[in-house]
């Protein structure tokens, strides 16, 4: 079950429009656009405040699934979920399950947590969220499976529109995620599934926490 845990050497994707943190004014404008689309938007002062905000949004004892996310790992949210003892950390529960005998249980547990906590790969100026996934298993809970969704998003992920979001995913996120996947799992990643959330019909179900820092891919 053990996977490679040594640091991964990521490709140099250089300094580009996809790696530069947006201005606070642009982040504030995107937050307003997200709110218009039914997505609760919170702008944190920094990653420490974002971490505290996630903590304040999660209910004690809840079943929480943390997506594999460089952003969550970097700011300590993964550690809070897996190690604080405040929540039912579903990723720990899943990790020790019998892959041969408990596949169905794993699938159903991961599909409908109380909270899923993750990130996004791009956010457009008019308030759409874009999330790519090789397997797609992260996307179902975000769309409807989880009761609540919390996304922590670095300030470099804002793009002008959907086409630019696709470019960011293909040209910037994919090479980094592919290197991480090959290192961690020994398999390539892929832009196989892309979720675009334009509007949420249950206002507030999804919370997006912006951090004016370069976080994650």
């Amino acid at each position, binding site marked *: *079950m*053990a*996977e490679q*845990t040594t640091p991964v050497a990521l490709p140099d994707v250089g300094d580009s429009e996809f790696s530069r943190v947006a201005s606070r004014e642009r982040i504030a404008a995107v937050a307003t656009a997200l709110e218009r689309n039914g997505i609760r938007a919170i702008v944190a002062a920094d990653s420490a405040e974002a971490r505290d905000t996630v903590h304040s949004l999660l209910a004690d*004892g809840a079943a929480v*699934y*943390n*997506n*594999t996310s460089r952003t*969550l*790992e970097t700011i300590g949210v*993964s*550690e809070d979920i*897996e*190690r604080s*003892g405040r929540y*039912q*950390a*579903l*990723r*720990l*529960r*899943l*990790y*020790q*399950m*019998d*892959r*041969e*005998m*408990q596949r*169905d*249980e*794993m*699938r159903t*547990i*991961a599909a409908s947590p109380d909270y899923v906590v993750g990130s996004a790969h791009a956010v457009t100026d008019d308030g759409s969220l874009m999330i790519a*996934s090789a*397997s797609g*298993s*992260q996307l179902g809970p975000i769309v409807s499976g989880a009761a609540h969704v919390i996304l922590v998003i670095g300030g470099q992920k804002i793009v002008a529109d959907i086409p630019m979001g696709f470019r960011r995913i293909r040209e910037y996120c994919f090479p980094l995620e592919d290197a991480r996947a090959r290192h*961690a*799992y*020994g*398999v390539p990643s892929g832009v196989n599934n892309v979720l675009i959330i334009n509007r949420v019909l249950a206002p507030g179900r999804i919370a997006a926490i912006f951090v004016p820092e370069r976080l994650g891919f």
Partner: protein
Amino acid sequence: MGLFDYDARPATPQVQLVGDRSSAAAYALRDFLTRNGLPYDWQEVDGTGGTGDPADLPLCILPDGRRIARATVEQVAAGLGMISPPQLDVYDLVIVGAGPAGLGAAVYATSEGLTTAVIEGVAPGGQAGTTSLIENYLGFPTGISGGELATRAVSQARRFGAEILLARQLSAIAAESGGFRTELSDGSTMWSRAVLVASGVQWRRLDVEGIDDLLGGGVYYGAGPSEALGCRNSQVVIIGGGNSAGQAAVRFSRYAARVTLLVRGERLGASMSQYLIDTIAGIENVEVRTSTHVVGVEADGHLHHVVVASTDGTRESLAADRLFVCIGGTPRTDRTSAAGVAVDSTGYILTGSDLTAGADAVGRWPLSRDPLPLETSVPGLFAAGDVRHGSIKRCAAAIGEGAMAVALVHHHLAEDVRG
């Protein structure tokens, strides 16, 4: 690594266990962590100690980096923060054992307002917690694993307010001042108005020369859920004709090259559910041998063969990397019997009308009223599940008895108040 995000390892470091593959102490740790749903990474070093000192094995490295040499279950449980003291001075009900009967009682008791604590020495779920897939439990049409059922039950009991004290053994129970004093292996003492003993059974030992020396080194009592990965491409032998043995055969068939199920009786149907018999019949790498029992083991530090004898007198040596012994149980009553609880000739706890029936019943029951159905010979002390004389050895039956016991505890407490 599987296909999906939920197959990925957690972001944070996990418990690391380093040990010899033939170490009983290392197996006890793997079993404890697996049955408590705690992920860990196992590093097998075959006695060399790897880069460390072999005398330190088994070595446990906790997620925060602390190292425990010659680790024991109690030390690891404490290191993982699993040990917390009882929260109340007096409880309405203390339950001994967190198997199906104990957890069933905990859910019903707390949901009906009784302050309740559950004591569990190893892991929630009892024997049922180690089964791979229970397919005939009501409400789960495609089945549920014993581990998942236990995890859900613990979560449900805690949500209602039950306190579940893990990794502690019962040391003693005594009736005192109209209630009960319960002492635990960690030195703590609890007081309660009623007690429910749901301590279940432990696997009956196999009387074969040399087998005790191989415990954890290829010989295991029970279904051994922690050992599934280690059985890949190996020869597995399971002894037993009950559902636990059948469940183990199904699980290990997914990993092992071959599974041989040895049954002393002439057929499986005597104590195994038909659905399991049908399932096993459809698995190519499982062979069922009836009218057969184990008479010897061959090992070179680790098991490599078992010698089996058939009722027709023939003997045969079977290649066996792992032997799982699932041959029924003996009741866990060694601590409760000291409280004066009457048991039958095989150690199972007598309750209700069984206390007052028969020629030797005189003096067993101390009160003028009849004992309540699950009440033991000590008024206010109840028994439920597999530990009880006459119980049906099925998960749903044990849960039902746990729920029934709570109604009787209410009756006892009301009587207590009336004086």
